[in-house]
């Protein structure tokens, strides 16, 4: 269908709207104020002995009620958008309204949010109200993965309450994880090294956890294939997201089978970036909340 210009449709809407308003006025005016009302030459039927059509005119305040709503409609259409492309005398728009509110929010709360974003963590942690806000931010954004008690879950989403931080537990590192997200990749070694080597390395990893790795037969292989990321002593490298293998916090499970799977098939973990969903103050509060004692 050939497109008609916007101006046509603007006029179309305006004309029908105005015609409707005039039509309603004409309808109520002539019903109330036509001389004689129903014609006299044709008598009304009679019901129940004495009830005739037109005997009791509708109350006059009905007329004024409808008339008042017409007046209000006209005033509204003069002030606000409604008559086709005419934007109204107040120049109001939905987009302008939300922009104004966002601006006012920024003006009113911007300075205090900046204060929070730049505050010392200890200062924030002392404020019970701010910590309650932080918990709400956590519940709304983080809890469905890391669990409401921040203890992690499903052997996929790490605990935020223990001492183990795959990407580092300092404030700046936690902030980076929240703001930019993290992508962790552990390659699988089974295809390259074969099953016996994977079994040996699994055993070595378990030994690392027990502090009994020294002199282990798989030590040479560990040094060759694993130490570059996890460190010669197995203490990990937060810069690479390579976890500490000497502690007892193993994200994907502590069992030999889980560890064997990690080494043989590899793992990949993802933390989404929240830098566009949360502002600086919210991220600062989260860091303070996560580091509270």
């Amino acid at each position, binding site marked *: *269908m050939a*497109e*008609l210009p*916007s101006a046509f*449709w603007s006029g*179309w*809407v305006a004309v*029908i*709207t105005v015609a*409707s308003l005039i039509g309603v006025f*004409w*309808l*109520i*005016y*002539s*019903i109330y104020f*036509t001389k004689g*009302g*129903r014609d006299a030459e044709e008598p009304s039927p009679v019901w129940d002995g004495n009830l005739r059509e037109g005997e009791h005119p509708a109350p006059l305040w009905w007329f004024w009620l409808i008339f008042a709503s017409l007046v209000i409609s006209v005033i509204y259409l003069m002030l606000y958008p409604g008559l086709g492309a005419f934007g109204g005398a107040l120049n109001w728009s*939905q*987009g302008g*309204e*939300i922009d104004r*509110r*966002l601006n006012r*929010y920024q003006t009113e709360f911007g300075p205090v949010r900046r204060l929070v974003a730049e505050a010392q963590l200890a200062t924030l942690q002392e404020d019970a109200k701010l910590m309650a806000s932080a918990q709400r931010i956590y519940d*709304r*954004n983080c809890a*469905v*993965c890391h669990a*409401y008690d921040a203890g992690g*879950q*499903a052997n*996929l*989403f790490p605990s935020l309450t223990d001492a183990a931080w795959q990407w580092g537990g300092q404030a700046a590192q936690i902030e980076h994880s929240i703001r930019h997200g993290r992508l962790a990749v552990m390659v699988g070694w089974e295809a390259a090294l074969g099953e016996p080597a994977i079994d040996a390395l699994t055993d070595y990893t378990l030994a690392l956890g027990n502090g009994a790795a020294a002199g282990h037969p798989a030590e040479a292989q560990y040094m060759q294939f694993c130490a570059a990321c996890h460190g010669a002593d197995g203490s990990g490298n937060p810069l690479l997201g390579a976890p500490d293998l000497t502690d007892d916090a193993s994200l994907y499970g502590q069992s030999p089978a889980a560890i064997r799977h990690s080494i043989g098939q590899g793992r990949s973990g*993802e*933390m*989404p*970036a929240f830098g*566009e*969903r949360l502002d600086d103050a919210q991220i600062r509060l989260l860091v303070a909340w996560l580091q509270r004692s």
Partner: protein
Amino acid sequence: MNAVELHRKLERNSGLLIFGILFVSAIGGLVQVLPSVLQDDLVTPGPGTQPYGPVELTGRDLYIREGCSTCHSQQVRPLLAEVRRYGPYSKAGESAYDRPFLWGSKRTGPDLHRIGGKYTDVWQRMHLLDPRTVVPDSIMPGYPWLGERAADADGSIQSKMRALRRLGHPYTDAEIEAAPAALAGLKEVDALVAYLQALRAPAVETTP
């Protein structure tokens, strides 16, 4: 003529009365619906809005099949609280490739129009199959069968894309040709997760 005479004419002639009723009821549609349907600039894709790829398109149909829109809206309203909670408010041009649109009007769960990227694919998958595995107090039903059925079980993706192309979605022959390969091996849940991850504010190139 006054309204009383008109009324007398109408109430004694049923043909005229029917016409009058239809005319009065049509006024709202003539003002509100007709211009929106016939005016191209109201259905033009907004900046950065792209048609769904075959996987997302399949996921969208699953979203409709499972009735997700009964509990989840896809419409961030231009209100301060909504923009703060969900992100940029929804604009008409974003729905140009949604047939039908899935704005919804009821939120038992949260709005999903900006859900893409908030959670990982792994989480979305677990949550769809059995929400209680990750959110213990969730009231959302589980959809375990999504993990069992193949995403292109009925092999209809190419005819779907051709039908949409007829309605103006700019799919190329090559894209339609490659569609079944994109879906090969995927379960329904994979397609639905891909669709959910695509629900985000369109990327608009900003001039530096």
